[in-house]
């Protein structure tokens, strides 16, 4: 009955109560949303690459190497010569090695030259392999396999021609050597979705008539001549390496880092991911802090609402007192009311979160390559909701204590 009366009282003040609840709901949705993005980002981040023991590139920072080789963010400052690559590949510890050559683009997507081994060796989400949605891996020199996002964004289908642009944001196209889409990959939620994959030789082929970043004037080598040329690259951007035994990882890493012919860097992807996450983590903490404060603000807003409602509700409290309700009942009624508001707000916030997720999931995925899973609330989220309800009840103690004093002073004789 008391619950029903508290509910009725809330309904009677529907407008202010609704505003308060909406404020709580939005803040809870924001908080949970930030949590969701954070955990989603962390998971999707850690899932980007697995099964690779070392990433090798020219000497720079480990985070930088990870960023350009795996996330295709930023650029390599230097290349890795083909000779060094061969040296590493021939070492006894190396089980497999996949070269990566970056630098060109197609529309907003990066072009990556590699070998067919990439499709076997690149793993994501704890050992999942890339799978073809349509078509097959490159069989011709000018074949390309495109990621799911590339296909979706640009509307490409098997057999469509693609012209690769030189550099990343450039007006000069490799338009005399168009590629043909031979395969489209399944969506992975990794940067591979946003990559145009060609063979290592193709990267060389399209640069035959180029020198130091510019087209050699008047020179166009016909395609059939190119096909007969030796297209072994002179340099690549990075290489993914797998070792034969786990214990050889560190030995190989040291060997590469101490390689005398060229300054090289070998990194453990997991460690570099951790390092990178620590950098991102500061923003993450700040984000949690801010969204936490939004929740606190909403709860204080609720406290203010309850405070301002006290005066108009003196009559109501006097009626309870006249009926023999102890002042304690009045306090618990207000606390119950606040908890009810917080609970409705929290649940509404949860609903908002799921609606938001449902709406934003494809957009976020497309824009950031971040896959936010829609799943049942985690224990953590559950505790956040419980916490909001408890905090709401605690916060309402302040106006409730005032109401207690008022009702003791007023008794049951309020003249309004």
């Amino acid at each position: 009955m008391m619950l029903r009366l508290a509910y009725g009282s809330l309904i009677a003040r529907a407008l202010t109560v609704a505003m308060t609840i909406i404020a709580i709901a939005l803040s809870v949705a924001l908080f949970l949303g930030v949590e969701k993005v954070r955990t989603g980002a962390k998971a999707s981040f850690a899932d980007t690459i697995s099964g690779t023991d070392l990433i090798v590139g020219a000497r720079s920072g480990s985070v930088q190497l990870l960023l350009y080789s795996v996330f295709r963010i930023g650029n390599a400052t230097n290349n890795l010569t083909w000779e060094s690559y061969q040296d590493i590949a021939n070492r006894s510890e190396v089980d497999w090695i996949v070269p990566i050559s970056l630098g060109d683009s197609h529309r907003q997507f990066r072009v990556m030259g590699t070998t067919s081994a990439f499709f076997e060796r690149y793993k994501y989400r704890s050992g999942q392999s890339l799978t073809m949605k349509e078509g097959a891996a490159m069989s011709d020199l000018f074949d390309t396999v495109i990621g799911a996002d590339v296909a979706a964004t640009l509307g490409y289908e098997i057999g469509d021609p693609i012209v690769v642009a030189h550099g990343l944001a450039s007006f000069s196209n490799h338009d005399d050597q168009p590629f043909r889409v031979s395969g489209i990959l399944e969506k992975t939620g990794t940067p591979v979705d946003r990559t145009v994959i060609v063979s290592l030789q193709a990267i060389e082929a399209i640069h035959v008539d180029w020198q130091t970043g510019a087209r050699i004037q008047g020179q166009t080598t016909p395609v059939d001549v190119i096909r007969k040329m030796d297209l072994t690259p002179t340099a690549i951007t990075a290489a993914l390496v797998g070792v034969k035994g786990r214990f050889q990882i560190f030995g190989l890493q040291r060997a590469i880092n101490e390689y005398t012919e060229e300054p090289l860097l070998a990194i453990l992807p997991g460690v570099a991911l951790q390092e990178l996450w620590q950098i991102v983590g500061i923003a993450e903490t700040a984000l949690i802090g801010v969204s936490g404060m939004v929740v606190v603000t909403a709860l204080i807003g609720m406290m203010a609402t309850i405070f301002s409602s006290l005066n108009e509700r003196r009559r109501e409290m006097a009626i309870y007192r006249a009926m023999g309700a102890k002042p304690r009942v009045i306090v618990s009624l207000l606390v119950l009311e606040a908890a009810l508001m917080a609970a409705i707000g929290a649940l509404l916030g949860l609903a908002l979160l799921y609606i938001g997720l449902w709406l934003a999931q494809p957009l976020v995925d497309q824009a950031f390559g971040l896959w936010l899973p829609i799943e049942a609330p985690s224990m953590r989220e559950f505790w956040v909701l419980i916490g909001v309800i408890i905090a709401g009840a605690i916060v309402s103690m302040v106006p409730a204590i005032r109401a207690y004093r008022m009702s003791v002073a007023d008794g049951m004789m309020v003249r309004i």
Partner: protein
Amino acid sequence: MSKDTSILTLKDVRYRWSGRASFELSVPQFSVNRGETVLLLGESGSGKSTLLSLICGTIIAQNGIVDVGGTDIGALSARERDQFRAEQIGLIFQQFNLLPYATVLDNILLPLRFAKSRRQAVPSPNAMASQLCDELGLPSDVIHARAGTLSVGQQQRVAAARALIGNPPLIIADEPTSALDAATQLTFLKLLFDQSRQHDTTLLMVSHDARLADQFDRVVKMSDVAENKRETT
């Protein structure tokens, strides 16, 4: 007036409001017998509200004894007084008696929530509430309506039903008719008398309206039982 026939006795009571405008009320002797209907007549400012608060135990006299049904409520703790009020006294105010957002039924049943013995006296509360509404001349469909949607006259009847439910020995009505027009006043009083007799309840009504006097067993003037002093500092 022996103890078993009086439901309410005030003896040598003195109460002093402290504050900027201090006000002192003293009641040397006032009592109401069981089953009586008493009208306490007084102008506004005569200390009626203070007297009622004393009887209901929301304030405590500095001196004297306030005895309700054989219990000195001055000797009770605040919690016990609240409990005691819930059990012993049905209250009807001048206006705004009801929780406007709650249904008529919930309003009538509200005192039972706080008074155990009154709840035990009513085996089937919903049926009892309907019966009271019926006896007080309220339409039967009104019971599930929100109290705020009722007319003032109907609201006062609901307040009467709420005061009567569970048969508290004493009903105190504080100007219950002043918000009603003359015709409705008489009907309301008649219903209230009928019901309090039927439920064997004592009725103490406070009013400034002397025209109602002939309806009651006894009329007491506020100025005869109490004296008050005002001093503004």
